[in-house]
Each structure stands twice: as structure tokens, then as C-alpha cells.
């Protein structure tokens, strides 16, 4: 089992960040290399830029904890996968700030490098989008 973790600080309130992450369909807005998304019940199907579809079970959308979890179920050769995004309030009333932590547990191990590189880039991209948006509003 390989584990990985990426994190980023975002100069926005946790509610603002959670508003993007809690909606499974909005992943195409912030995850580079995902070109399509659809939902069928709790099953999300994303399409990678290479054309490869990936099926995922949405496991948790916890508004109280601001936690989103999903599992890749196929057709990637994954024996086990659980990804967790935690949105954590680290700001103050005067200076809103959020820590976004994206953790992955996965088998087989080599997949961790593929996903870790992509997720670390994705959350940096999300932070950039939200921070730019914050500057536009200020």
C-alpha cells in the first residue's frame, strides 16, 4: 500500500473552498488533465485527456467535516484506492485562510506516483484559481 499527501494553503474561507470541492461535477474546473465528467447515482466517471475513462465511487461528502472521499473502481488497474480531501479552517475572521489536504492510499504502489503528481498539481491549480478570484473581488 502506498500513501501520499499534498496540501496547499488558500486565501479563502473554508466555505468558499468547500463550495467547489463538494460538487463532484466541478472537478473539471480545477483538475488539469480531466476533460469530461458525468454522474450516475454515486458513481462519477471522469475522462482523462488521454481519452481514458475512470470510474469512481463517491464515498463521503461530509458537510460538517468538509470532507470529500472517493474510490477509483476501474478500469485503471487499481486493487485498492481511497482519496480524501479535507478542507480545514486555519484563518481568522479578519483573514480567511484554508488548508486543503489531499491524501491518497492506493495499491498497486506505482499508481501513487501517477496520481500524486497529478493531485499536487491540481490543488495548486485550485488554489491559484480561488486566490485569483479572491483578488478580483477585493
Amino acid at each position, binding site marked *: 500500500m*502506498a500513501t501520499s499527501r499534498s496540501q496547499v494553503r488558500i486565501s479563502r474561507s473554508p466555505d468558499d473552498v468547500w463550495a467547489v470541492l463538494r460538487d463532484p461535477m466541478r472537478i473539471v474546473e480545477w483538475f*488539469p*488533465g*480531466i476533460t469530461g465528467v458525468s454522474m450516475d447515482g454515486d458513481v462519477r466517471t471522469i475522462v*482523462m*485527456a*488521454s481519452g*481514458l475513462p475512470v470510474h469512481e465511487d463517491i464515498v463521503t461528502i461530509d458537510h460538517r467535516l468538509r470532507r470529500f472521499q472517493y474510490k477509483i473502481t476501474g478500469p*485503471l*488497474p487499481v*486493487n485498492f484506492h481511497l482519496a480524501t480531501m479535507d478542507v480545514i479552517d486555519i484563518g481568522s475572521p479578519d483573514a480567511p485562510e484554508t488548508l486543503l489536504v489531499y491524501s491518497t492510499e492506493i495499491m*498497486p*504502489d*506505482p*499508481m*501513487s*506516483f*501517477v496520481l*500524486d*503528481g*497529478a493531485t*499536487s*498539481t491540481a490543488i495548486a491549480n485550485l488554489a491559484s484559481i480561488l486566490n485569483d478570484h479572491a483578488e478580483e473581488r477585493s
Partner: protein
Amino acid sequence: MGRKILFITTDQMRYDAIGANGGRVARTPVIDSLAANGISYDRAQPTNVVCMPSRATMVTGQNVGTHGVWMNGVPLPEQSASVARVLGEAGYRTALIGKSHFEPLLDPFLRFGENKHAMLGETTGSHGFEFMELATHGAAGFNHYAQWMQKNHPEAMGGFFQVLDRELEVSGVPGGDTGAPQIKVNPIDPEWYHTDWVARQTMSWLDSIGTDDDWFCWMSFPDPHHPWDPPASEMHRVNWRELDLPENYVEDRAAREAIIDAKPRHWRKWYDGELVSNYEAPAKWVPATLTPDQIREVNAYAHVENELIDEAIGRVLAYIEAKGWGDDVDIVFTTDHGEFQGDFGFLFKGPYHVDALARLPLIWRPAPSAVQQDPERVSKPVGLLDLAPTFCAIAGVTPPAWMEGKPLPVTDADADARGFERSLVEWDSCQPDGTDVHCRTIVRDNLVCTMYRPGTMHDGTEGELYDLIADPLQRVNLWDDPSRQGIKADLLADLFDNLVESTMELRPQAPV
């Protein structure tokens, strides 16, 4: 009109693979003729013994700590330093045809430009090149060769060895007559094989540019890197049953293991199948199971691939001659790193800075119209670090200050006069299971000294020291020899005086 530059690379080729360096099996008359009319380097080293860091050094002219590509799976940023960009700005047409590997190959999200361009059918260059047409070790992946195969010969794609297994690990499925890992009889037509394709696309690009243009063309063959799956029709060239075993394979098991046991512990760990510190080596393959016949068969496949490369180079050189460019072209031939091919009982590569992996073929045939070159052999240490400034010098461009090498010397006296005293080789690896290995090597005064930094495998006290004169096969580790502690300390001090340290986070973006 200036001197044109044909830069030819292979992938994972040993120093002794070619006739000009003493190779006795593969017939390489074309490469040998370059040596006969140019300068051969007998101590040329990479900065790292896997593809991406080494290739990043070739294109940037920088050490690993500067360009930042510390392992396979770590991308070289598109806007990084590039000798191709320098030459382009000086008026050169620039192309890279074949294997670049500046960016990770395993890229389902298509995050990297080279993969993206190839999938879109574009030949838009990156990393300073105006044109790129890419290939890798088979007909799979996000590259132009795979696209070409898919379009023209889809029925032949399955003839290549399937590199990854269902768990995305590098496969060790046995093949051939002996059950050796990563070999396969490939029924592909030789004209469809990537070696021929690279040569053909090189000529096609050269055909597209003006006769009076200056050009820098990197023709980059994916072979003889594993998997070893050359066209079946060519296997008659070398009968594995008739091959001698490599000089540095010790047939007696106890003697072989005693040599390995005198080296730092990760050698024996890999040998016994308890550690794989390089993703590219098959995860489930155990070197201790390697038989003499398997070594013979792997070597036969590699020799066949090297002959095909030599012939492909010959066709390109004949084309260049026919274009009337022959006297105006500088030709540089080398590879990115070596291969065990049976030495010490191993195949493939990893954190093992012995000559099998870290001593490379390197030949420079200057343009005859510019230099009347007698055949020369340079024994002083040089490196792939010196290629980019050499290309600048050929083009009449002052090497930029960000290049960290020097134009290659043309004689040992020239090397002495310009301070070619040492070369450095680095390794850092972090496996998904948390295993990490970090080592640094200096080669100087016919000594090879490698120190291992603390990690999960080493405690910071282990190392290797070899005397290349007394022990050219690097079998006797002098690291703990009391009589060598003075020179060891001197070499390590010199190593750290010249090492470019990086503070970047060791976090790969892909396995390879």
C-alpha cells in the same frame, strides 16, 4: 554558412558495445569509422545512470542539482535552459527525432507538452527545439511512433514486449529460449521497427530544410534499452549459444557473491530480490536466478539491436553525403547511461556507479571542412555535461554562463590544460514504499569513489572505492582499506567542493 551538427544518441548502451571500444560481437563499422576519423573518449560519464536526469543534462549542459531532474518521473520544465534554444537563436534549425524523455512517459492526464503534442499529431517542438517527432521503446504510449504504428501497422503493435504488468510494475515475464526477463521475439518488419523509423524521420526532417541552412539534429534511438525485442528476422545475426560470457560475470556463485557482499548492502539486497531501487528493473525479478545462458541471450539481443542502429546511422550519413553536406557536419555519438548486461550477475541498472552503467561510448567526428582531425583517444574524465558547450563551440557561439560543462577536449594535453580532472555521478531514488537510496560518485586519477548518504538502506558510513588501474573490473572495494583512507578523504572533499547540491523536494511526478 556554419558547421552543421548531427547528435546521435542511443539509450542504455555500454562503453564496450561498439567495435571502436573493443566490442567483439556487434559489427558497428559506421560508428567505428567515426572513431577512426575523430576523437574517442575513454572516460566519458553521465551525471546520472537513468534516462531523464542524464538527458536533461545533455540538453541543458547542467548538473542534476541545477536542472532539477533528479530521477525518472521528474519533468524538465519546458522553459528550462536548452542548448537547442541557444542554437536556434543563433540561426540554427533544430530538431529532436526519437526518444527525448525530458518529461514523464506514464502520463494518462497528458499533463506534459511532449505527450500532448504527440497525441494531437503535432510536431511542435519543446525545450527549445523547433521540431520534435518522438519514439520510445515500443509501440505503446503517447508518442509519434506509437501513433504511426497505430495508424499504419496496428497488427504489429503486439509483437513488442509488454513492459508493464497488470499492477503497473515493470514486467519480468520470461522470454526467448532461456526464460530471460524482458526479451521477446518480435515478428515486426524491420522497416517498421523504431530504429528504422527514427532514421527515416530524421532524413525526412533534413529533407524539409534548406540546403544552406545550419542545423542541429538530435537523432535519438530508443535501443538498446530493455525490453530487448528486435525484429525476429534479424536474430540470425548473433547466435546466443556461441557467445562468451561477459568478462565481468563471475561464474562461480560463491566467488560472485563474495564480490557483491564486499559492496554496500543494497547490492546484495537487490541480488536476493529484497530490494528494487529503480522502477525500471522488473519488480519481481531476482538477479540471483540469472543463468549464464540468460546472460548470453540478453547480450545477443542487445548486439543485434546495436547492429541495426549502426546500419541506420549509415543510411543517414549516406543521405547527408548525397545532400552535399558530408564535409560540413560535426557528428557526436554517445548514449545516456550504460547497462549491466550480466556484469556481477545483474541486468538493467540502478544505484550502482560502476563502469557497466557509468562509462559511456562518446565519439566526436568534427566536420572535415573545419578540422583535419587525426584519430585521437582522450583518457581524461569528460561527461555528458560537456556536450551542450561543445555544440555551442562548434556553432561558434560562446557557451552561456548557465552551462556548467566545458567544450570537449581534443587531446589529453588539451584536457590537462583546461582542467578536465574529474567527473561526478549522482543518484537519488524514493520508492512508493518509502525506500530511498542516495549516492554521489567522483571519478578522478583513475579512482572511482562513491559515498552513500543516510537513507532507509544506508547509514551514511558505506561506500565504494575502486582503483581502475589495478582493478579495472571494480571487484575489490577499497572503501575500508586502511591504506586508502587518505586518498578517500581527499576524493570526498573534492567531490563536495564540486557538487551542485539541490534543495528541491524529492517528489516524482510519475514512475518513469
